[in-house]
């Protein structure tokens, strides 16, 4: 394969699975449309690679490609990063600054982790998209217009976020004119051997062709059977470690131990969660001590939310004699979300 004959098609998207073929085919057909696109997929599956391919196969290739991570910045900062500001717009705004929208003019703006954008900013983004790219920087009266192709990426189930009131439905439809779903690596193990080949070649080149031993067939088989919660990025890291250590057994043991570990942890966490009470959660000198490995504000919050949800949903289900369609209306969530929550929160119907 030579890259010379096909310049500017973007970083290679390796994979022989049906899913990856479909992704490459979609990119080919939609890259020149300039229509808004959302790329869905778990962390590390290659959403950004897809976005770069869209860009490089589009007529905007060579123009700016600007990326912003909506999860990494607090709301106010994200807003000023996106839309820019005038001098004196707020304390500390000593210089006027262009926003990413404007910097991406005539090119592409990748809104990474769009599912984490706050509702007020979603409203502002919607407005910009509706007006064909018009907005005013913070502290400015004047509208700026930019011709920016917006591609968004997320690992959230945005439909679920909509049901839960965290994502605007109108923004969802406006962004989601084209949807590209990148499936998790565990669902397409046939892509693992070609990915390994590709990265071994790449790392060999990086190490100035110092001879690198390819993992044995047995190791490759094991790697194909692993669940890859961190997807391709995790595969890269594991390969690097195997290559650096020159021996795979240790890395492989750790890998499968960690897998057993996480699945065990999940079970214990959910059993605990099942019986968890607010008292238990707030028992900071005992059960939920900050010294525990599993302690974090995020975990505690999640457990508290689940506890409350479980109570309320159980209550409404009991009231409606487990008529789930009625219950979903009372709870003001979709029927699908309710079913999902019942199984997720392990709510069981009363024994008759």
């Amino acid at each position: 394969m030579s890259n010379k004959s096909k310049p500017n098609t973007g970083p290679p998207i390796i994979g022989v699975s049906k899913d990856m073929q479909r992704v490459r085919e979609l990119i080919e057909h939609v890259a020149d449309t300039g229509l808004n696109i959302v790329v869905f997929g778990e962390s590390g599956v290659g959403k950004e690679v897809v976005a770069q391919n869209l860009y490089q196969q589009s007529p905007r290739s060579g123009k700016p490609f600007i990326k912003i991570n909506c999860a990494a910045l607090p709301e106010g900062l994200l807003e000023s990063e996106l839309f820019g500001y005038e001098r004196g717009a707020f304390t500390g705004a000593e210089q006027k600054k262009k926003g990413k929208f404007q910097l991406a003019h005539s090119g592409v703006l990748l809104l990474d982790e769009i599912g984490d954008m706050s509702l007020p900013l979603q409203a502002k983004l919607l407005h910009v998209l509706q007006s064909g790219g018009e907005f005013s920087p913070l502290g400015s009266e004047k509208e700026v217009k930019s011709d920016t192709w917006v591609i968004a990426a997320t690992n959230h189930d945005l439909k679920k976020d909509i049901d839960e009131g965290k994502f605007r439905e109108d923004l969802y439809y406006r962004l989601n004119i084209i949807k590209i779903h990148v499936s998790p690596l565990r669902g397409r193990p046939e892509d693992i051997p070609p990915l390994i080949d590709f990265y071994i070649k790449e790392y060999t080149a990086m190490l100035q062709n110092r001879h690198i031993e390819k993992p044995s067939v047995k190791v490759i088989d094991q790697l194909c059977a692993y669940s890859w919660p961190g997807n391709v990025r995790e595969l890269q890291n594991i390969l690097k470690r195997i290559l650096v250590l020159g021996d795979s057994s240790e890395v492989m043991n750790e890998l499968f131990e960690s897998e057993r570990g996480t699945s065990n942890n999940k079970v214990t966490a959910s059993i605990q969660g099942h019986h968890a009470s607010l008292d238990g959660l707030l028992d900071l000198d005992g059960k939920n001590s900050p010294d525990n490995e599993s302690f974090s504000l995020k975990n505690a919050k999640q457990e508290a939310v689940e506890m409350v949800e479980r109570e309320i949903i159980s209550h409404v289900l009991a009231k409606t004699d487990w008529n789930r369609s009625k219950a979903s209306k009372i709870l003001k969530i979709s029927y699908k979300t309710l079913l999902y929550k019942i199984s997720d929160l392990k709510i069981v119907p009363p024994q008759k």
Partner: protein
Amino acid sequence: MKKPFKLLIIDDAEEILIALENFFKNLNYEVTAASTGLDGLKQIEDESACFDLIITDLVLPNISGVAIISIAKQKFPDTPVIAITGWGEHPESLAKEAKADFVLEKPFKLPELEQLVENLLNK
């Protein structure tokens, strides 16, 4: 005999797609059916196809009906496009923005759609 009109119909619900296809075939239209947005797009891109009218569902996986309308109208501004949509679905306004000639809400009666197609073709 005069040449039959060529229709492209895109819907991911199989029973609807088959029903529409049979309905228009019986009326002597030449019908191409596509069950995904990508399939539909490939048909539109096929230079030899030259459809007289396109009917597309709005909510489709991957390439939505709104995308189909935008792309079709860009390539063939004079080819009429009818969007069909479930009641109250948001994309209706997007379909109009993309310059769909008509947005028809489900459920509709087949003769209603036929009338609409005829009107748009005879314009």
